[in-house]
């Protein structure tokens, strides 16, 4: 039985349904399409092999017409070599005589082919194509003046077509996985907005009415079954309210007009009894309240972050297509990431103030303007300057929109629901990061980098359409305290906080932007990976953070070992990034990304909690949000420095060396933090507490 006011029970059933209607048809259609693709590719591969064979046979036949016996031809290896080299799907070339004896072969051991050639009858057309071991062998007859001298054999890679089909399959599976996550987000939004949310609100009215409180009723919302039900419940409250007002008006009339004091007193007593038992609005009718829920903002936020994450895997590759006089190519590729981070850092405090003044909805929509403009400028950029302007605009928009969402969530979530509200925010950002990375890579590979930015603009606009439905509060709450420069210096005087920021928070961001955003895409591209593959490889990082974070958050809360987890995370991340020093190739990079994901998964949640522990008195002074805002601002120094430092290192050390160098920095910082964490002790910072509260 579905619980009426719980989104979870409905969503679970709908997700099972979504999986049932999405996955089987896609699997069936795609299985059929793969067969067709195979049918389409194999003849083309055969044609190519035949073309190569015909070409080679023509040259060899020319030699034969000059009277050179086939087995006396010289320089056949040099003759075959360039053909093998320029056709990667070609595995071998062989020349056999009329008896099927191998005279020359290149690319494979003759013993692999000989048993087949000696038994096959190539005079029959059907036997000219054969699968030998892992090769597809095409035999092209070699004839001079009508006499069959032998065959030229062209061996194609038997795994070529399956490998291409596998690549297509991986793309489709990625799209399906992303579709399932998006389905979850959309269904969650639809159900929360139309059913679970409104029913939770009316549930509060039920609870209040049980206590005799008939002051507020929720807005009925849509004209569907939920809306009708809420209207009926509201009508019941309104009816009681109406009778109450009639009663009070009648009682007032009797009290003011009646000559008998005894009657007046007894009527007043009745009135008092009613007022004692029940409470009604003083405005003349029940107050209609428009509640805001943290879930309302989840889908707009998800779409917006998705729009930014689309370009995550290829931004340095796209940046690298531009040039700036006197600036190294690596720095040109790093600058778009660095300026984006800098724009976020500089716009965030301003965005916070703006949200307090104008409300989340309007600020969200306002922030979309620079963001969309930025995506368009980035997609249309013809020079590095245009690209940088685009990224700055997007960074400003990103700061404004995410700040508006944080504010919305924090105001929607009350008391115990604060953590839940934060979970809504973090969940939307993390899932969007995973989906955006995966989908953006595929999109860029098929449609190009620029098209991906235009898709980002469309997604951002879609986020705006949904955000336009958000409810702004009737009154904006003034920020408790201004968390400005004074607050920053106040926090930095707390040595525990300063150590935490410099040796834990900043290095984490330095490694993130330096390695995950910048070096890894460039290095993997250099290793020959396509953009879609790079995006999937980067999921190792995002995926491990998503999987590890919730469990570690619970562990950190249960054990209280927050500084330890942050230090451990730093050591694992730093150590992992040293792995590319051990050898080249993709595997060390994969392991490094995995270690960094584990590192950030271990430290992300404990970092947030640790800040409150370390800055107990400062939190009382400027509020937890204010303190966290300063942490976010300071760690952006690491975000900006990451790609810049990496770009400076690459010309000297290469990509693997640069990753290891950033790893060494992160490792050294983590060691210092681990040592300092031992000195932290436990409990609030009594020293700084004493400074404030004498």
């Amino acid at each position, binding site marked *: 039985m579905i619980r*009426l006011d719980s989104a979870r029970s409905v969503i679970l059933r709908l997700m099972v349904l979504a999986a049932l209607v999405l996955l089987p*048809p896609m699997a069936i259609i795609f299985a059929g399409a793969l067969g067709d693709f195979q049918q389409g590719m194999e003849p083309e591969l055969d044609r190519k092999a035949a073309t190569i064979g015909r070409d080679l046979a023509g040259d060899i036949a020319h030699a034969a017409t000059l009277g050179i016996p086939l087995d006396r031809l010289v320089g056949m290896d040099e003759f075959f070599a360039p053909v093998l080299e320029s056709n990667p799907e070609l595995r071998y070339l062989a020349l056999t005589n009329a008896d099927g004896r191998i005279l020359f072969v290149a690319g494979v051991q003759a013993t692999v082919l000989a048993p087949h050639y000696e038994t096959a009858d190539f005079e029959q057309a059907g036997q000219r194509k054969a699968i030998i071991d892992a090769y597809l062998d095409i035999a092209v007859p070699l004839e001079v003046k009508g006499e069959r001298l032998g065959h030229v054999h062209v061996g194609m890679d038997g795994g070529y077509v399956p490998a291409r089909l596998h690549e297509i399959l991986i793309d489709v599976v990625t799209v399906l996985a992303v579709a399932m996550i998006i389905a979850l987000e959309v*269904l969650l939004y639809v159900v929360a907005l139309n059913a679970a949310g409104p029913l939770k609100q009316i549930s509060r009215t039920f609870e209040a009415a049980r206590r005799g409180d008939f002051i507020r009723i929720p807005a009925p919302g849509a004209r569907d079954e939920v809306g009708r039900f809420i209207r009926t419940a509201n009508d019941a409250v309104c009816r009681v309210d109406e009778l109450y007002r009639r009663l009070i008006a009648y009682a007032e009339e*009797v009290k003011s007009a009646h000559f008998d004091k005894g009657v007046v007193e007894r009527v007043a007593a009745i009135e008092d009894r009613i007022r004692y038992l029940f409470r009604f609005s003083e405005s003349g009718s029940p107050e209609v309240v428009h509640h805001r829920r943290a879930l309302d903002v989840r889908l707009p936020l998800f779409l917006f972050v998705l729009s930014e994450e689309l370009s995550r895997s290829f931004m340095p590759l796209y940046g690298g297509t531009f040039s700036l006089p006197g600036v190294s190519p690596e720095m040109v590729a790093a600058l778009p990431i660095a300026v984006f981070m800098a724009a976020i850092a500089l716009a965030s405090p301003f965005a916070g103030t703006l949200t307090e003044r104008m409300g989340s909805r309007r600020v969200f929509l306002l922030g979309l303007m620079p963001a969309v403009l930025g995506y368009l400028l980035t997609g249309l950029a013809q020079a590095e300057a245009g690209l940088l302007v685009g990224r700055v605009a997007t960074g400003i928009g990103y700061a404004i929109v995410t700040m508006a969402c944080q504010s919305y969530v924090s105001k929607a979530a009350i008391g115990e629901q604060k953590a839940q509200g934060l979970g809504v925010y973090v969940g939307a950002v993390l899932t969007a990061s995973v989906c955006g990375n995966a989908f953006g890579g595929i999109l860029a590979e098929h449609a190009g980098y620029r098209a991906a930015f235009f898709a980002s603009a469309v997604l951002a606009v879609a986020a705006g359409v949904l955000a336009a439905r958000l409810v702004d509060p009737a009154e904006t709450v003034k920020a408790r305290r201004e968390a400005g420069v004074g607050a920053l210096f106040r926090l930095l005087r707390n040595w525990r906080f300063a150590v935490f920021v410099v040796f834990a928070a900043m290095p984490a961001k330095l490694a993130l932007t330096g390695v995950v955003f910048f070096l890894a895409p460039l290095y993997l591209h250099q290793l020959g990976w396509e953009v879609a593959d790079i995006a999937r490889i980067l999921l190792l990082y995002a995926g491990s953070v998503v999987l590890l974070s919730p469990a570690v958050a619970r562990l950190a809360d249960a054990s209280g070992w927050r500084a330890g987890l942050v230090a451990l995370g730093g050591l694992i991340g730093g150590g992992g990034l040293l792995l590319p020093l051990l050898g080249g190739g993709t595997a060390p990079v994969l392991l490094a990304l995995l270690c960094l994901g584990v590192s950030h998964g271990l430290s992300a949640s404990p970092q947030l909690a640790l800040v409150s522990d370390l800055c107990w008195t400062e939190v009382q002074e400027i509020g937890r949000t204010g303190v966290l805002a300063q942490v976010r601002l300071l760690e952006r120094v690491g975000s900006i420095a990451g790609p810049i430092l990496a770009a400076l290192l690459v010309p000297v050390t290469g990509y693997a060396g640069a990753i290891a160098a950033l790893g060494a920095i992160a490792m050294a910082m983590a060691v210092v933090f681990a040592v300092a964490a031992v000195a932290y002790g436990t409990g609030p910072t009594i020293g700084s507490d004493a400074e404030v509260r004498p």
Partner: protein
Amino acid sequence: MAWSLPRKVSAALLAILLCTAAATAIFGYSKFEGVLSSLVRSRYSVVVFSIKKDIEDRLALGLPLRQLRQVQDAIEREKIDQPQIQGIEVFDAAGEIIFDTDRGAVGAAVSQDWVQAAQAAGHQTFARSEEDSLIVGLPLVDVLGRVVGAGALRYPAASVAEEVRPLLAGQARSGLILLAGFAALAVLGTYAVLAPFGRRLAAMERQLQTTMAEGGPPPAPADNDPFEARFAAFAASTREALEHMQDATQDVGRLDRLEVRE
């Protein structure tokens, strides 16, 4: 028009289904088309490679490009062997066509874009596209390593699409039928999941209306659902409040009338 909850959820599911099908179809086809196009291109590049090798061997003997008259026969032979080929051109470093399967074009100039592409390609193939044709070419390099011209082969741009179309037409038909079936399943499934939800709300609505109009016992909560328990308590307390108001109003009225009569 007011949309019921199952209709809204069905619409969301159908939109997701269609978008997913479109995205997988576009990406899947695009990758397949890319692989097939590169296979076709590389097949034609083998032909150009053969011509290039032939010409470069003769250039290595010291013969100037213009005097290699056998090349004209060779390229014409290739075109006859492979009727899909639209044309093969050999041009010099300045872009003047020296040999062409369309003999009338000899002496004309190719686009400067081709010349630059050939110069930039080194020993690699270069590819260009024109209105209806795709071009694959290879630079001709003399013994001193200088690019002295290039050979280029022109083939129809639509050749891949034409090859793939019949394969995919059948696939698209069966895919659409399958999608329509699963879309219907999505709608039915959504109604199956959410219809009881709507029925329970409607039943509760009726119960509340009855309780408020006629009094009597409040609705009993079903299956210990906390929401329904709260609803039952609400119905009871609202009814109780209503009765209180009515009783109090009667009391006030009675007091008013009683004292007036006295």
